């Protein structure tokens, strides 16, 4: 069963949770073959009930210790622009659509999502363009993401500090 996982991290982002569960968005997801929607809703005031979207299988929770398993099970991840969530989804090799919360001004986390979008590692939209983006998006344009390389940092330090 094709699954979409939506994550808002530790923030509250009702506009995204509401937007992705509205009838139009659900219809578009269904048309694309997604039948299962898992929501990590964080501190938001909306936590949709399992039967609130009649045409799609829906699960919603606020927090889990790790969202790694939900990401692994997903065929598409829709995330807020948080650096941690973005890196986790891309690191797992999942197609990622970042929805920017344009109510947050000067949010430096946007810098990274924007850059990763320019490098074609993720798709990028706002809540008002979410349904349209889901309808028209082409996941095949996404470039594979090379994970960060902490070992390079370790080797550099070893050399600088003379560690054998």
């Amino acid at each position: 069963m094709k699954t979409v996982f939506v994550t808002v991290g530790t923030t509250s982002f009702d506009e995204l949770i509401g937007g992705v569960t509205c009838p139009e968005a659900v219809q578009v997801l269904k048309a694309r073959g997604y039948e299962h929607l898992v929501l990590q809703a964080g501190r938001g005031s909306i936590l949709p009930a399992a039967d609130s979207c009649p045409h799609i299988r829906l699960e919603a929770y606020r927090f889990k210790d790790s969202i790694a398993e939900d990401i692994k099970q997903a065929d598409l991840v829709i995330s807020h622009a948080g650096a941690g969530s973005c890196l986790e989804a891309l690191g797992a090799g999942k197609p990622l659509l970042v929805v920017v919360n344009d109510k947050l001004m000067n949010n430096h986390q946007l810098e990274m999502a924007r850059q990763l979008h320019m490098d074609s590692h993720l798709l990028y939209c706002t809540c008002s363009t979410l349904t349209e983006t889901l309808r028209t998006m082409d996941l095949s344009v996404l470039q594979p993401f090379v994970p960060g390389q902490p070992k390079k940092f370790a080797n550099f330090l070893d050399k600088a500090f003379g560690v054998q």
Partner: protein
Amino acid sequence: MAFLFGAVFTLILICLLFIIRLYVVVKTGSRYKPGARGPVSVLVVAGSGGHTTEMLRLMESLSAAYSPRHYVIADTDRMSEEKICTFESSKHADSQFSISRVPRSREVHQAWISSALSTLDALRASMPLVYRLRPDVKVSIVFVESVCRVESLSLSGTLLYPLADLFFVQWSSLRDKYPKSIFLGRLV
């Protein structure tokens, strides 16, 4: 009068000597190779949330030669301690580490003026900590800018850029703006 003059002169001299000493220590820090004499004691200043995750990814790559590891976290940070303990117990069999807490110098959204006061409070708590954990007279400062900084440095990064011995950035656009910085690609 002569006594007063002498006292002031002595005070100025002590301050001057202290500044010279500090300058010498900071300047020679980068040529100092602590690893040549065995394990390197590390003081790790963790942020919170995603930044602690970033820090632990970097720590994970370091060999067992970097030991013991003293973590410093903010007193209002509830998540990081658990993350650090989980990481330490999974990575090192004979874990040598400690966790210390200091008052946070600035909460997210805190006003700048009250940040100045809370920063002083954090500084007051940090001084004895650095003194207690200090492994050696010469200390190297390694700063890694967060991966979420693409176009501009964070406040911590801006403050430490002139002081750090090794200053890492994770995007080439920052390397171009800050010539002293080291760019090895994305690290986390």
